[in-house]
């Protein structure tokens, strides 16, 4: 099980992921720079924002209303923006590629 994070400067991090954890927590566990996850996964801070690689967009579970609302107030969002704390690691997302924004904070 791997997840690929690509920093804004292009640096790639391929990390081992454990089923049941979130994509945000997986990044934190491997000290991937550029994801903060201040609220610990409660969909309450918008500091785990990522862009989902085009190939993966349709393969992830859809956003909840809470995630949509949180993303409305988040900076630098695009159509493929997601909060990585709201995506759980499952066997189906092995190889998921996430691009990170230039900054999670102002």
């Amino acid at each position: 099980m791997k997840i690929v994070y690509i920093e804004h400067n292009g640096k790639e991090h391929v990390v081992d992921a454990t089923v049941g954890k979130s994509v945000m927590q997986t990044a934190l566990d491997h000290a991937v720079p550029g994801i903060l996850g201040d609220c610990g996964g409660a969909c309450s801070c918008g500091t785990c924002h990522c862009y989902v690689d085009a190939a993966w967009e349709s393969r992830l579970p859809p956003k909840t209303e809470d995630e949509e609302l949180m993303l409305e107030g988040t900076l630098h969002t695009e159509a493929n923006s997601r909060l990585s704390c709201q995506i759980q690691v499952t066997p189906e997302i092995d190889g998921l590629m996430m691009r990170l924004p230039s900054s999670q904070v102002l």
Partner: protein
Amino acid sequence: MNTKISWDPYRPDLAHNPYPTYKRLREESPLYYNQEYDFYALSRYADVEHGLRDRENMSSAYGDILEFVKAKSRMPDAVFIHQDPPVHSAYRSLMQRIITPKRMLGVEQEIRKLCARSLDPLIGADRFDFITNLGAEMPMRAISMLLGIPEEDQVAIRESVDSRMRTEAGKPIDLSKQQDLQTEALGSFEEYIKWREKNPSDDMMTELLQADFNDPKGGKRKLTRDEIVAIVNVVAGAGNETTNRLIGWMGKTLAEHPDQRRQIAENPGALVAPAIEELLRFEPPGPFMARYVTNDIEYYGQKIPAGSALLLLVSSANRDETRFVKGDSFDIHREVRPHMTFGNGIHVCIGAPLARLEGRVAMEELLKRFPEWEVDYDNAVLSSTSTVRGWDSLPVWVGSKPKNATVSAPKAAAPEAAPTGPVALEGKWNVVVKGPTGPQPAVLVLEKNGDSFGGAQTGDGATSQIIDFKYDGKNISWANQITKPMKLKVEFKGEISGNTISGKAKAGFMGSYPFTATKA
């Protein structure tokens, strides 16, 4: 050196440098129990993070301040920092939609103007004070601006109250009359809310008034006035005090790292943001967060029984060497990793985007005007409590410090007895604290006991003995314990001029507010 480690958040000897003690706690006693005050403390990064995220065993129902948790203090539902889910979640998610990074970015230019307004008048001076001249001004104005309180209204409300106080000065004001005055002033805040209801704008108050609230008791409704007042108090109180402290730490830390300060000034676009994150990690304005433990839990083979108060030492977690290489060094170039300064989990600071923005803009605007300064430690005042740690006053020399400079700024609270002031202290003083919701009146009665003073203060229908009284002929300070609207120690610090004392009253996490006391 192998003495058993002892620590509590009240030790004045640790105010200036608590970090070696935290290091010992992490190494020798990662779960620490303090018998004297009966609380537990966790100091390692992983444990602090775990504790802050542990919804199963930790409760915020009694707040996040040690004394409140121990007293099992309860607050109205809308004070959501003081609640657990689902009540917390209902208010938090509503506020979350109002305090967004997008909204904060929208006011960047306004905050820049506020910084310029505080800093421009200081250009050309030999010295200024990071707290008085910037920290105490900008964050307060920023929150008022975000709430949409027009500045002319702020002034008008204050002046109407002041003029009334002037006509009353010199004769005793009975408490009932003071209560009327308070009701009237609270009324003017209500007036403002009413006015904003009819004059909606794009500010936070308008959104609070219009937002649909999913009541945890069921149904969708608008917030009540009382709820709005409570929310505004929490937001304003929490945001002012801590951002003020952040600005003080900016003044101190950059002065002690002149090389890094120079690098930031030369390349602010790239280095201010990481410098703010590093500053937040290095000197957190709020060093501890308390929780009430709801189940028996275990750390390091030792039990924390249900019903205990637990302190999570974020300022220690932020220096944990297993997480931050050379954690005790200030290094703006370090790899950015999450720190615990804003907390973590469902109660993580909702104002973090604003704090980061204010910190960044303040640092940029400061360095533009003052690339170098030196702290005047002889006249700087540091305070450390169980809620915040930071500078009450941080005067600096700008550019080069004059040789043999003589200092005219007031000395830090000199605890001399034997008052020699022009006005007899004993007797009755009419005290008015200008809180965020209007003036809070009280009556202070001082009595002379030999060389020192004691007395009692009455406000909101309750009387308590004053404590920690100090007077040196000019500077005067005391504290009292209030029970309404909550149990809180209020610390008064001011200067006497003629028959009037003016200064600041500090009410725990609710923040500091100006007060005056007039001899009756």
